């Protein structure tokens, strides 16, 4: 058992040394890292007021902060001036929430499997100001482009021009294992959204950031996830005070399905529909345009073409979650089911049985050629029954 890290010394000795060996400085071998940083920088463009310069660990060892990198509702993020691979999040005073948040972060630091996973920007070390007041925490910097990039076709064209459906699939597979890793450790991500996930453009690996909001069951009891994006939330959570809700794995499975759907559908929300309400209202009422009897209320665009080329099994898992799983959490697709369906899709895609284009040129027809054309015939007719083109 490794010891819990209390000082910058141990932080650098163990974690950073290790990371550095594998992650060269931004810009050289990881050209995309500059982009991710630039994304975050844009959010931080406003005028700097009096910024903190120094942070201290529990032993009073000081470190200088680099220039502001990102800012959000709860706080600001800075790299350490002399260790760009370490980020420090400094909370706004109002976000510090008594000592409850500090207790949560302490508990998070004890969770070795999460702490040691290269997939999460997990809190590693609490930081203090000169007066010894707790101010935030330090974590490793993770590389990648924001998942948001995958939710906007134009950004894919600009930043991931080499991507095909294969990369999206690998990315989806990686996302499911990321969530699985959390769940195996009794952690619920809670606020799954395209801003909290990074994607490595080369390996397609998905990584989780902003982990301080995750729901954990630590030694000090349950620490809830106080935030969430309504567009990706299980319907029973909408309108609730997130900080008071104990989230369930089933609720997370609903968010996982929405995130996966948006990855495969280039950002389209599964509850988008013509002449309907906004996606959140549709999500709440369960009016999904995908599936039997939905009245073909599909948004205008190439969406049917994309959908028709997805394997029937995968579409079925989506529809099950969005229709049956809307009111029945037990019907939501399990991570293992996603895994199997995605593995099968990737295998068949590699065999040339599915169209690798991000936007196929035409909807899949029964004439689509492939080595399993007999089976596909059935798939195509099923698909068009489930989801007819919006005229």
């Amino acid at each position, binding site marked *: 058992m490794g010891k819990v890290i209390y000082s910058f010394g141990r932080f650098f000795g163990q974690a950073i040394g290790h990371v550095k060996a594998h992650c060269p400085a931004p810009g050289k071998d990881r050209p995309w890292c500059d982009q991710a940083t630039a994304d975050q920088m844009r*959010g931080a463009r406003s005028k700097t007021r009096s910024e903190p310069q120094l942070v201290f660990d529990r032993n009073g060892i000081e470190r200088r902060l680099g220039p502001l990198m990102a800012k959000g509702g709860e706080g600001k993020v800075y790299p350490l001036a002399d260790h760009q691979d370490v980020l420090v999040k400094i909370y706004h005073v109002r976000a510090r929430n008594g000592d409850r948040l500090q207790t949560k972060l302490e508990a998070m630091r004890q969770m070795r499997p999460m702490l040691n996973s290269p997939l999460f920007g997990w809190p590693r070390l609490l930081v203090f100001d000169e007066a010894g007041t707790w101010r935030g925490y330090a974590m490793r910097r993770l590389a990648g482009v924001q998942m948001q990039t995958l939710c906007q076709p134009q950004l*894919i064209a600009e930043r991931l021009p080499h991507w095909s459906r294969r990369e999206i699939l690998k990315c989806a597979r990686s996302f499911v294992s990321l969530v699985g890793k959390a769940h195996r450790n009794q952690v619920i991500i809670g606020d799954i959204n395209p801003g909290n996930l990074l994607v490595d453009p080369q390996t397609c690996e998905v990584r989780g950031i902003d982990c301080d909001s995750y729901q954990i069951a630590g030694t000090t009891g349950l620490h809830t996830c106080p935030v969430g994006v309504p*567009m990706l939330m299980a319907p029973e959570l909408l309108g609730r005070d997130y900080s008071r809700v104990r989230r369930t794995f089933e609720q997370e499975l609903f968010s996982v399905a929405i995130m996966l759907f948006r990855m495969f559908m280039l*950002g389209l929300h599964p509850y988008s529909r*013509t*002449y309907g309400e906004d996606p959140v209202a549709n999500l709440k009422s369960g009016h999904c345009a995908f599936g039997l009897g939905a009245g073909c209320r599909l*948004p*205008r665009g190439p969406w049917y073409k994309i959908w028709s080329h997805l394997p029937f099994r995968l579409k079925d898992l989506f529809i099950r979650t969005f229709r049956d799983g809307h009111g029945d959490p037990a019907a939501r697709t399990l991570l293992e089911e996603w895994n199997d369906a995605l593995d099968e899709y990737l295998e068949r895609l590699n065999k040339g049985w599915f169209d*690798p284009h991000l936007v196929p040129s035409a909807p899949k027809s029964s004439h689509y050629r492939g080595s399993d054309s007999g089976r596909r015939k059935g798939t195509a007719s099923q698909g068009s029954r489930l989801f007819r083109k919006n005229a």
Partner: protein
Amino acid sequence: MQSQSDNEYGIQVYNASINPAPRCPCVLLLDTSHSMSGEPIAELNEGVKTYFEEIRQDDFSRFSVETAVIAFGASDQGVSLVMPFTSCARVEEVQPPRFKAGGLTPMGQALERGLDLLKKRKREYRAKGIAYYQPWMVLMTDGAPTDQWREAAQNVQNEARNRKLVFLGVGVGPYVDMPTLTEICPDNRPPKRLQGLRFCQFFEWLSQSMAAVSRSSVGEQSVRLPNIDGWACVEA
């Protein structure tokens, strides 16, 4: 043109119909009447330019924010749609409008035109299945209306009360009729007065607010907007 081998299966051409981002329509109603001549109109031009530059540098607002610009004053036309709803998704294509000062201040007409524009836009969104945020309307003036404005103001307030519109009135210069502007603005969001000619600061704030909105989720009740200290006067 990009060769096929570079990007065999990827996405090559930008096509507005494959933009899945929820839209945030924003109508700018800008007073370009005679009294804006000289430095004010030059600063306004600079400010609007800044706004579009900021919008297109942000990954979220670039695809979400759609801005329409209506100028009132300038020339005999009175109210003119200087720019129909435009997004900055195609970075190279947006040409920020430039204004000349002149004419009266037909504010009522401008408000009606803006509301009408929004109504049509929302109808289009619904027909195409595009999600949208609560629209924004910004009214900037340095004077008093020279036409009928009460009915238009009533419509603005109804929309704002029903959470169908975020309306922001901004008074410019020493001769702005703040009491009338206050009557036009919804009660929960009284007008602000611009500090000097800080148009650029105002439009920078507006673009940051738009960025905050386009990062939020459709249906979210409130979005934290940036601080207005950079451009607004502290009213006594």
